[in-house]
């Protein structure tokens, strides 16, 4: 049953990924045949200051956005877990942030964050609070992108609510009989129950934040002001398709893979371990 999916993944993901690894060691401009270049592509990108700026920005972005996103998902899940009147509408509204196409999501935020006419700054000004220039100011541009990524919690919320449902009612009944208040129930029962899911969610969000920031950067900042929001995927894209240096872009991709490989490995290892414990 999985055969079509496996075939598709091989053809569209695994094979191009392997080809990209090979590209990292050649000089290739898409117009003439590739020529062997060894590790020179890596030497070139490591000498380039902008690469290190992009690497730093990527790590700052991912390690800020992912924990905030996981935390946000947890808080929303706590809020929207109990079955109440209208809770489904609220869940749908939160989940909408995750099903919106990236392009639409980025354009909506571009409007929300408009420094003069955007609803966020209009509200802040109305409340008499300072109005940051968001994407325009080099000091707040990357933080703005973090906010945009962090509030996309629909998927995480759904996952955590589903995970919560697997907790047997009996332990909550027992806690109630023992007289545990809501905070203690959360701290001693719910949080430990959700911990593995939260950890997986955090790892997944981290991996996503490292490698899939291209759309918001292209549409919202173009990497600027200066290089304040130049993240690795954007730099790779520019390198490959604007400047025709596919070899150097592939070398950067290898660096990105080195960043996301360990967390993916960790996630796989953890899942296998838990699954085995469950089975045992």
């Amino acid at each position, binding site marked *: 049953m999985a055969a079509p999916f496996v075939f598709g993944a091989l053809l569209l993901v695994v094979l191009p990924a392997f080809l990209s690894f090979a590209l990292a060691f050649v000089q290739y401009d898409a*117009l003439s045949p590739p020529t062997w270049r060894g590790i020179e592509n890596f030497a070139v990108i490591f000498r380039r200051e902008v690469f290190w700026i992009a690497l730093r920005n990527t790590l700052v972005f991912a390690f800020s956005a992912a924990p905030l996103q996981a935390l946000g998902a947890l808080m929303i899940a706590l809020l929207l877990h109990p079955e109440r009147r209208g809770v489904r509408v609220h869940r749908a509204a939160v989940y909408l942030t995750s099903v919106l196409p990236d392009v639409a999501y980025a354009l909506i935020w571009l409007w929300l964050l408009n420094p003069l006419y955007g609803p966020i700054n209009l509200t802040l000004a109305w409340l008499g609070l300072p109005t940051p220039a968001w994407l325009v100011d080099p000091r707040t541009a990357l933080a703005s992108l973090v906010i945009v990524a962090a509030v996309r919690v629909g998927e995480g919320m759904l996952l955590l609510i589903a995970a919560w449902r697997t907790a047997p009612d009996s332990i909550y009944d027992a806690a109630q009989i023992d007289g545990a208040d809501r905070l203690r129930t959360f701290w001693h029962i719910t949080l430990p129950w959700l911990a593995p899911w939260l950890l997986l969610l955090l790892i997944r969000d981290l991996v996503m934040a490292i490698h899939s920031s291209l759309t918001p950067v292209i549409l919202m900042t173009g990497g600027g002001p200066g290089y304040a929001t130049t993240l690795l995927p954007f730099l790779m894209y520019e390198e490959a398709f604007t*400047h*025709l240096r596919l070899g150097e872009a592939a070398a950067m991709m290898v660096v990105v893979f080195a960043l996301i490989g360990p967390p993916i490995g960790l996630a796989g290892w953890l899942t296998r371990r838990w699954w085995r414990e469950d089975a045992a």
Partner: protein
Amino acid sequence: MIRIVGVLGIALLLSAACVALEPSSARAPEQTSVTFLISGDPADEEAYRTLVEHFMAEVPEIRVELLNIPGQGDFRRRLTADFAAGTPPDIFLINYRRYGPFAARDAIAPIDAFLAQSDVLRREDFYPQALAAFTWRGELMCMPQNMSSPVIYYNKDLFDAAGLPYPTNDWRWDDFVNVAQMLTRDLNGDGEIDQYGFGVEAALVRAAPFIWMNGGEIVDDPAAPTALALAEPASREALAWFVSLQNAHRVVPDAVAEAAESSLSRFLNGRLAMLMESRRVVPEFRRIEAFDWDVAPLPQGKEQASILHSDAFCIAAASPYREAAWRFVEFANTRVGQTILARSGRTIPSRIDLAQDPAFLDAQARPHNSRIFLDAIPTLRAFPALATWADIEGAVDAELKQAFYGQIALDDAIAAATMRSAEFFSRQE
């Protein structure tokens, strides 16, 4: 039975539809089809579509498929992807600042031989500045379609309201700053500027004319550049004047105001008095009804100078239909072809004889002062022809923008741009 009839009916309908959809294939089975890629707004696309239709009426055996990718960045990426896939467009229209990477990799078929054999086009008919911009290592690579240079578009109504005379053709930098200051106004007294005197993109392509006017250079040796020369006193002085328009004189919207609403949009809405732009905005500006506008030359410095803008038709070396592609390029540059495009307002013909033609110098159509585009031609200079020029320009623009908006000091910007662009001067592909 009913099902069989139904199926037969559908099959009949489908075949009828096929016939109806492809009448041309039945008429001319030997027809050659070539693709033509451009990047423009709807007004551009309309002008090129008219050109294509005229050509196909004249030469029915060649079918031209027009493809428009709006947005210069998307256009270049699409072009690259098409070349990489081995299916480049037969013909594409590209700016001289961006064709270098393709020329350097032999992806463009030189057109010297085609032009030499042409009965209708002669090399001498074209402006030498445009031909030079598309000459790569001694060979003419593409056929220049147009040429222009940046000018100052100004809102006449705002000048009238301020009681200011319209700009003259010999105004100078100081006059310009004075006028811009008088046109930058807080109209409702709330402490916020509602009307700006000037709008300009904070980019090297806009600052370059002022650097040259001041006797400065952008690179150390324009013929064989090895480094940026923006730190040289004359260049730096011009750049300092350019960025001071925003960060000292405040006649240009600041970073926040520009992000909130672009200068172009402000001009269109009658809230920005002067805008530095090339010829490309004319079709859109001709639709302005709320106010009257015209063009003025760039304010003068120590010397006369401006920067060339030019697009040309290039033929892909990998195209199997180079002959057919040339026939279209040839037609596009005849009197008929160039007149169609000039009438749209978008372009200034690359042909010397046609630039004086009423289709371009139409007294009825705005801008009335179109002649200044022609007057600037002898003073036009071009960026160096390097395959890595886009990298160099990108490195400068990233820093210049921050200096322009007062986020970093100009000297730091020049130093950073010089350092980051260094590798792209040394690596010539």
